[in-house]
């Protein structure tokens, strides 16, 4: 279980307690959080679950695999240093307190 904050481009936020096993992407999908599409279902194909990790957030995240790095070149909103695919972030206690910003567009 982890508390995840999804910040929307309009300044509002959605805070969810997401149980494991899940990903940050699926936590959003199952709660119908607007702004995460994840068309490929979480197989790191489509880049439509793009998020920016909050700069002030100190939660440590898993290393980025090559696939994820490649897919992030094609995101609809600009890639930044803080960009991740939320389908590659597995929920665990270690992710408790994670804050992500949703991009303007996913496709």
């Amino acid at each position, binding site marked *: 279980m982890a508390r995840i904050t999804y910040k929307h481009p309009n300044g509002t936020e959605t805070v969810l307690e997401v149980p494991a096993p899940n990903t940050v992407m699926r936590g959003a*999908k*199952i*709660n*119908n959080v*607007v702004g995460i*599409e994840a*068309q*490929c*279902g979480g*197989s*790191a*194909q*489509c*880049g439509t679950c793009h998020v920016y990790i909050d700069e002030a957030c100190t939660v440590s995240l898993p290393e980025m695999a090559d*696939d994820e790095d*490649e*897919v*992030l*070149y*094609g*995101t*609809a909103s*600009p*890639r*930044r*240093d803080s960009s991740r695919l939320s389908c590659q972030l597995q929920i665990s206690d270690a992710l408790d307190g994670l804050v992500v910003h949703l991009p303007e567009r996913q*496709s």
Partner: protein
Amino acid sequence: MAARSVVIVGAGQAGSDTAAALRSHGFDGRVTLVGEEPWLPYQRPPLSKAYQAGTVGQEELELRPASFYADQRIELLRGDRAVKIDRELRTLLLDSGRTLPYDALVLATGARPRALPVPGAQRPGVLALRGLDDAEALRQQLAGAERPLQVVVVGAGFIGLEVAATARELGHHPTVVEALPRVLARAVSPVMSDWLAAEHRRRGTALLLRREVVALHGAGTGDGPVQVVELDGGTRLPADLVVVGIGVLPNVGLAVEAGLNVGDGVLVDEQLRTSDPAIHAVGDCARFPSVHAGRPLRLESVQNASDQARTVAAVICGEPAPYRALPWFWSQQFTLRLQIAGITAGHDEAVTAGDPEQGRFSVFCFRHGRLVGVESVNRPADHGIARRLLAAGPDLTPEEVAAPGFDLKRRTAQPV
């Protein structure tokens, strides 16, 4: 007047996403989702791949958990079937006898596998793959086998090639029979077809092109399990299992009976309206005018189902926008991740960039000098960038792609 009650027929990707998108758009009326299958709406792409390999189970296939439908006030009617639309009264009659009134009706009825039109096609051991039931039947055969099986796959489309690859990975001996001269003929360029064919052969799959199945033979006169696949010219292939993947037919029965305009699919306009403005169609069953292809298209893909769901939800909520999302597709065969951006059919020039020998390359397809699509193998960055480029109106030329050292990633890398 805004709709107060929306009924969605079909609880696949398109239907389920339409229900969710209506709520995301703030639709506050009644949403009813009718599905024939007993399961919660699920993802189909893994059925031919990860589900067969056992790495993804039924629960992980679910698009959303049961609680989602309750939380979002979506009435999900499972195991029921729409039997008749009354356009005058605006009601939908279900097999259970229930009648659902609607202000807006969305047909997301999907498609069904085309049956092999030869004698013996009904024999046990002849399978198609569309739903979870089909996938489970196939899994029991492939994963449950005690010895390597002779698997004959009819059709070298996405389903056929994915099933063949999965069967090979599970230690079986697949033979793919395709009537056309190349694999994935409708979906990719000849360059990509040839490369993929070589990869399948190199990994131990037999691939017979320009060959047709004429009969399936088995033990007993008519209803014994399949044992032999007979091809044109008399070739006989031993078969423990036959998987038929020769395309699908859109489910248009309801629309036809209701007198809607139907071609190959339910005909809709750019806002996904049928010839009755209170009825829409989305996903595999809908034929829509495509700005990307320059002609009406019916697409069988998650992207199309999902993006059309969002378009139709917006239209129903009174925020109409034309459906113009860029088509894209993916397939996984062995370790090969094939991704296609745009519609490459009808291209007149194909330029390859990258390294086909290392299994990492992209084929850039042009028509009259204009980029229309990009097919990538194990080059996700190319695919993603190509989607952005194609959506924006591409300025890439064949000469640029053909130049030594061309790298799409470097050319269009966004400032970090």
